């Protein structure tokens, strides 16, 4: 009997280790030979811990499992109350187009043999054949745009680093996934870490960089552990180090652990943090591609961008570019979170509408109450009301609606949400996380909290609302990075789409 029990952080947080131990104990009691594989997560979090048993028809799932559900697995699995059928036929899974996440949840994350058997390192082999200029052309042709939020074409960034002259260049992976509602980087680092090693190695060869860093936030201890192990195993197999895969290229990499600063997800703050300083934002230009880590040319990409590189090289730019719409090519791992019935990771070609994702795929709210708002793109993203659910998942379509895709997170709220409170929180979060370098962000966010507090208290609401609007305009235009510059998105979208939450009865004048 071959049984899969995920070791992903979300599965562990919901009791996967206890379930795995119970399975071992029960198998022992019954004298059944059970081989337990700790896979990553399929990304269907409402089912975690999702146990899978291998059958001749495929892997059949049970979830969400508890210790009490374990004996039933050995009695009559077909009639098990937690049986969900063949995992890959669950509509949430079957409707996806998994390119970046093809192996996630399927393989044993640290089994290099498994990784290679499922197409791993075919991309690197192809990359070595193509050579640096060829790889950059391929990435450009794929249409891949930065998955961290800015959406800048990855191939152009690489080409800039490739043609820069320097004695040392770097590849830096931004895995400081701090946006609430996002977990795609984490899912892959824990479920398919060799993909990141391979993607970064390809980036190194493409640009002539020989050293790489993965900057992982400290809030992801499991990702840190798994990545460290994967790097050690890749090094042992000579897939990292001198003459990678017997080529003429050298590349090695290491993990760097963050220290709990959201702003370090901004690329220049991240570079300062890597250099052992306070994570403060740098003014651009110069671009990190030319003057990056330690002043050297640096490819700095979001983890999902780098994780998508192997499949692009393996299957070809054309294959990847055939997915998507407009200038948004390929697929996007959409992360559905918050008050939602079926939350998780849904990788799909660009072009799917917000309403399809929230209503059809995710099934609405967990509370069963009507959806009132969806925050798209993390704490710096806009709140969308259901009247905008026809918005297509596409960089430009979101921009047109005064929103952003960001790193692909969607946080669902039901009708009990107070949008004035959420607008206040956006300012409060910005104040908490501001690096302090530029004034609109450092001071503006604190003033923003104060003014919204007045609105909530009913003090001169009209005057104060126009003050918030004015403040948002200043932060948007005057901030050095997206923290101060994008905080106005959640604030203004809450005011625009949910004005009723900002019209509290005016406070009576102070009684004398």
């Amino acid at each position, binding site marked *: 009997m071959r049984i899969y029990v995920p070791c992903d952080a979300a599965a562990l947080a919901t009791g996967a280790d206890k379930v795995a131990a119970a399975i071992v104990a029960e198998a022992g009691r019954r004298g059944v030979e059970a081989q337990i594989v700790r896979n990553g997560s399929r990304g269907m979090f409402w089912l975690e811990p999702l146990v899978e048993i291998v059958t001749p028809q495929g892997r059949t799932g049970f979830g969400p499992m508890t210790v009490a559900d374990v004996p039933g697995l050995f009695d009559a699995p077909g009639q098990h109350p937690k049986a969900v059928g063949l995992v890959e036929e669950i509509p949430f899974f079957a409707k996806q187009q998994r390119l970046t996440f093809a192996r996630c949840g399927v393989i044993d994350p640290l089994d290099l043999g498994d990784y290679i058997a499922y197409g791993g390192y075919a991309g690197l082999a192809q990359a070595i054949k193509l050579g640096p200029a060829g790889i950059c052309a391929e990435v450009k042709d794929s249409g891949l745009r930065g998955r961290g939020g800015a959406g800048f074409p990855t191939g152009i960034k690489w080409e800039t680093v490739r043609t820069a002259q320097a004695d040392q260049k770097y590849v830096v992976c931004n895995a400081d996934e701090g946006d609430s509602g*996002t977990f795609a980087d984490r899912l892959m680092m824990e479920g398919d870490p060799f993909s990141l090693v391979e993607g970064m190695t390809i980036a190194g060869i493409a640009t002539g960089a020989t050293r790489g860093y993965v900057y992982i936030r*400290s809030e992801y201890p499991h990702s840190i552990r798994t990545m460290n192990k994967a790097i050690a195993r890749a090094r042992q197999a000579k897939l990292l180090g001198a003459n990678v895969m017997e080529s003429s290229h050298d590349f090695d990499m290491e993990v760097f652990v963050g220290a709990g600063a959201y702003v370090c997800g901004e690329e220049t703050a991240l570079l300062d943090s890597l250099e052992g300083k*306070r994570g403060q934002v740098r003014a651009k230009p110069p671009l990190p591609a030319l003057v990056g880590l330690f002043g050297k040319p640096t490819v700095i990409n979001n983890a999902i961008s780098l994780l998508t590189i192997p499949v692009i090289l393996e299957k070809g730019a054309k294959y990847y570019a055939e997915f998507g719409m407009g200038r948004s090519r390929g697929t996007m791992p959409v992360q559905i979170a918050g008050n939602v019935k079926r939350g998780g990771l849904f990788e799909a070609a660009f072009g799917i509408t917000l309403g399809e994702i929230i209503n059809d795929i995710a099934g609405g709210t967990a509370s069963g109450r009507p959806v009132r708002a969806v925050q798209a793109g993390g704490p710096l993203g806009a709140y969308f009301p259901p009247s905008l659910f026809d918005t297509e998942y596409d960089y430009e379509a979101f921009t047109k609606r005064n929103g952003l895709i960001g790193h692909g997170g969607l946080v669902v709220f039901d009708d009990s949400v107070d949008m004035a409170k959420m607008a206040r929180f956006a300012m409060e979060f910005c104040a908490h996380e501001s690096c302090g370098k530029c004034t609109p962000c450092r001071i503006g966010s604190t003033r923003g909290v104060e003014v919204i507090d007045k609105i909530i208290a009913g003090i001169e609401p009209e005057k104060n609302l126009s003050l918030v609007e004015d403040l948002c305009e200043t932060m948007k235009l005057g901030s050095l990075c997206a923290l101060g510059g994008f905080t106005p998105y959640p604030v203004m979208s809450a005011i625009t789409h949910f004005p009723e939450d900002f019209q509290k009865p005016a406070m009576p004048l102070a009684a004398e």
Partner: protein
Amino acid sequence: MNNDFKPELVEAIIDANLGLERPLLPVLHAIQEEFGFISEDAMRLVANRLNITRAEVYGVVSFYHDYRTKPAGRHVLKLCRAEACQSMGSEANAAALLTRLGLDWGGTTEDGRLTVEPVYCLGLCACAPSAMLDGELHGRLDAAGLEFLAQEAA
């Protein structure tokens, strides 16, 4: 965990990280791991050995939310306060717990048993609300579950 400053231990931590391109953050992580916080004595020693000013070390320690300059309680409970957890009622649960313990965010119970800190996202946004107790993750944590967790940390 022993909170007493031991210069030889700090020296050993620095030595083990000297090969890195910029060892400051890894050294601070390791010191906090060893002693539970980063004392002024430790900062002085780090500045000296890495040949940077004490102001630089202090600047880094005070910038990052992870670093502590005072010992925490025997257990540290980090509660997520970000939007996804808020959408599932985390703020009300946290407020109830803090009120019962008589604490503010970041506070430690009088008996030194438990410190409650905010955290902004643990990446468990589809099984919210979430928390981390002494490095262990917990998801789908309703009010009763949170209370149980806080009591379990004895």
